[in-house]
């Protein structure tokens, strides 16, 4: 018995030693990626599916964006598909594929969760709700194999931005139908081996929670311009792990640095650190039906006593203290109304009937498992210090947290929103009555009237002006307390060139190239 275990120990020793020697001589993954022209990207998680009609996430958009490509024309009324473009199996991409994709997504049986992205099309919503059953009444019409006519519900000046979203991409009709009926929800067409795309890359391999590998698509219409041989997506959810892996040379670009490492990275690895704006806002929902919180003055007081700069300096490093709700995008510039003014806050609170915080109800901040402890702790402290009020915290698992908000079973809730396209509507439309993302119990007729007016306005600058007024009203009423604008803080290896800051973070991988670059430590 002793003898055999000794032998075992010896073998283990030899095995470990040889492993060590092997491990030391290997080139890093990044070096290998540079050699093989494969970009290794941290993607923050695994896509739920690659069928663009079944998903809603940002993670999915990165992968789907390499496999598919949308409309090419910029004309609001009639869009053309690229003549001569091919699917990766050699079949031509036609306008029929686009029409099929929209039909499939809008079909009630498909139950596509992100279907609202297509509601810009005339009669699309009615068809999706089953109020009309004839798809020819929907504003999608195939004129010829390469021309598609789309009739819109109302003028949508930002349509080109919307159609870049994956919900507007075509699907290969012949492949989808090969694996099932049109509006069948779960079919195998988007599985590795079956999926066919028109993007710069094709799906090579998908190992769940491990990696997704896409390889260059030789049939892509612009294949000669694509420099990369492939992209490898790593679904790393633990951002400490991701940062560590990057510094050990295992990936070219990360998804996100944990806030508490941002300062260290900017000090020690400025050559890697990228900090870019991103269209997203972190805010707090108020339940405007709760006594106390139903007063705009109370909500204003809570906002004025909220030191956003301090929060972004201590627990949300890398985020930007916000001055309004909608982040900066294009020409849209809402008034910078959010500020820190504890004296005014105390005055408003007194006017609302709680002088010096006396008699103020004890509310609880609702947070899901995605929220961070220190953020709420900092908020608790701010209100205690500046308004002399105490708030509790109610923690929940993610599903209960979402449900509690939808049922208005909360006082205040930490939340966030990320824009789908570059237009203020993606941030402002949700605060209308009955919108599934409102969840504050607040609505305002004049606010909705303004949004209506803006929708009919064809002059872009006047349109934005109306939105600015609507947002001013929103900030005056303050059903939500915005506290930080999202930013992308990530590490990027200098050998991946052609990677530019983008507000929606939808980097075109077809334009990235890998050139081995020495990095000075």
């Amino acid at each position, binding site marked *: 018995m002793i003898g055999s275990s000794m032998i075992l120990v010896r073998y283990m020793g030899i095995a470990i030693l040889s492993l060590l020697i092997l491990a030391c001589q290997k080139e890093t993954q990044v070096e290998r990626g540079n050699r093989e022209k494969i970009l290794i990207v941290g993607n923050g998680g695994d896509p739920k599916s690659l069928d663009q009609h079944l998903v809603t996430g940002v993670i999915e958009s990165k992968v789907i964006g390499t496999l598919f490509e949308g409309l090419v024309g910029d004309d609001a009324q009639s869009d053309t598909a690229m003549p001569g473009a091919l699917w990766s199996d050699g079949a031509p991409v036609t306008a029929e594929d686009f029409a099929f994709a929209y039909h499939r997504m809008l079909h009630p049986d498909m139950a596509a969760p992100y279907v609202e992205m297509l509601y810009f099309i005339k009669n699309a919503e009615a068809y999706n709700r089953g109020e009309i059953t004839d798809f020819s009444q929907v504003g999608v019409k195939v004129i010829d194999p390469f021309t598609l006519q789309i009739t819109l519900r109302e003028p949508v000046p930002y349509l080109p931005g919307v159609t870049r979203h994956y919900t507007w991409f075509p699907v290969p009709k012949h492949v989808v139908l090969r694996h099932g009926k049109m509006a069948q929800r779960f079919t195998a067409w988007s599985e590795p081996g079956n999926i066919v795309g028109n993007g710069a890359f094709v799906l090579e391999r998908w190992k769940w929670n491990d990696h997704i590998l896409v390889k260059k698509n030789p049939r892509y219409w612009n294949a000669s311009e694509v420099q990369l041989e492939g992209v490898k997506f790593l679904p790393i959810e633990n951002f400490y792990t991701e940062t560590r892996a990057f510094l050990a040379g295992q990936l070219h670009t990360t998804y996100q640095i944990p806030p*508490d490492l941002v300062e260290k990275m900017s000090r020690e690895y400025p050559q890697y650190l990228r900090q870019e704006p991103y269209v997203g806002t972190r805010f707090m929902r108020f339940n405007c039906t709760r006594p106390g919180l139903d007063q705009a003055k109370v909500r204003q007081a809570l906002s004025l006593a909220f030191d956003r700069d301090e929060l972004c300096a*201590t627990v949300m490093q890398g985020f930007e203290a916000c001055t309004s709700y909608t982040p900066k995008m294009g020409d849209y510039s809402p008034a910078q109304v959010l500020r820190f003014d504890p004296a005014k806050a105390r005055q408003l609170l007194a006017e609302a009937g709680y002088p010096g915080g006396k008699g103020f109800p004890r509310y609880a901040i609702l947070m899901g498992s995605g929220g961070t402890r220190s953020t709420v702790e900092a908020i608790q402290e701010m209100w205690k210090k500046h308004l002399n009020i*105490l708030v509790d915290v109610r923690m*929940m698992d993610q599903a209960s947290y979402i449900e509690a908000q939808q049922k208005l079973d909360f006082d205040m809730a930490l939340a966030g929103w990320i824009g789908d396209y570059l237009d203020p509507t993606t941030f402002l439309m949700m605060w209308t009555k009955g919108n599934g993302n409102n969840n504050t119990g607040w609505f305002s007729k004049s606010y909705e009237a303004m949004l209506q007016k803006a929708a009919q306005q064809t002059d872009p600058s006047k349109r934005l002006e109306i939105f600015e007024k609507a947002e001013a009203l929103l900030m005056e009423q303050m059903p939500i307390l915005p506290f930080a604008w999202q930013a992308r803080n990530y590490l990027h290896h200098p050998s991946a060139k052609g990677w530019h800051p983008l507000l929606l973070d939808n980097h075109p991988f077809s334009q990235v190239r890998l050139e081995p670059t020495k990095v000075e430590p």
Partner: protein
Amino acid sequence: MKTSIELQQGNSLRKDAIMRLRKNRAAVAGFFCLMTIAFLCIVLPFTPWLADPNAQSLVHKNLAPSTQHWFGTDHLGRDLFSRVFYGGRISIAVAMLTTFVAVCIGVSYGAIAGYARERVDATMMRVVDVLYGLPFLVVVILLGKVLERMTSQWSEWLVEALTSDHATTEKINEVRTAVEPLVTMVPLFLAIGALSWLTISRIVRAQVQSVKKLEFVEAARSLGLSHRVILFRHILPNCVGPIIVYTTLTIPGVMLFEAVLSFLGLGLKPPNSSWGVLIKEGSDMMLTNAWLLFFPSLFFSLTLLSLNFLGDGLRDAFDPKSSKD
């Protein structure tokens, strides 16, 4: 007559055990270390030497240990020294409570199963198998849901009972801050304890089965002693070793589970802290503020090591067989 003899023997056994325990230097050291930590955690929060564990100060954020802040401060400028001791209070209370419940249930259940006839034993152990297989987190989330309603009511009652009718909002808030963490945590962890006795019961059952065939059990049986007396006075004392050892093994698991719960959105509410939460947060700050990981881990490890050495000492001391030495 019989009982009085037993009683007498019991007394002398206990005295012997304490004598033996005293001679075991590691156990004594463990005992004193444990007592010191427990004493500090219980008493220090009532003294003025400990800063408010939740008081934040921007000027003092991320300070390394110094004479002013012995264990340094965190990213919100809170004093880690007081957070460690306030946190220890909660961690120790939670761990003791949960483990106590788990051990009580597990030992009785396992002992009965091990002693009973084969059919009863098999049924009892298959029940254990079913409970093992249940998705523990689902059960805990559901428990949290049910208990959330109840405990918020309980703490309201308690606050009302503890304050007079004319109490100011400040006074009520103060009482609530003190009462709430306990009222919300205790039932949850009692329930968790009532769910984590499974491994103990398996270990005790195996041990009982191996002891019950020994000669002295036969002797007791032929004396006509009742099953209860045989099982709890004669067999169980012979199983005390693994019981004590596994008990000391359960405690760290519970302390850490509390942290896991907090990060799933259950358990201890901010701004309160516990060792589990402090260690979890410290592990994220490992590269930037290493002291935030070091000090909570130090106290956590010291407590566990002392517990285990004390447990070993107790095991040796109360081992009925070792009295023959």
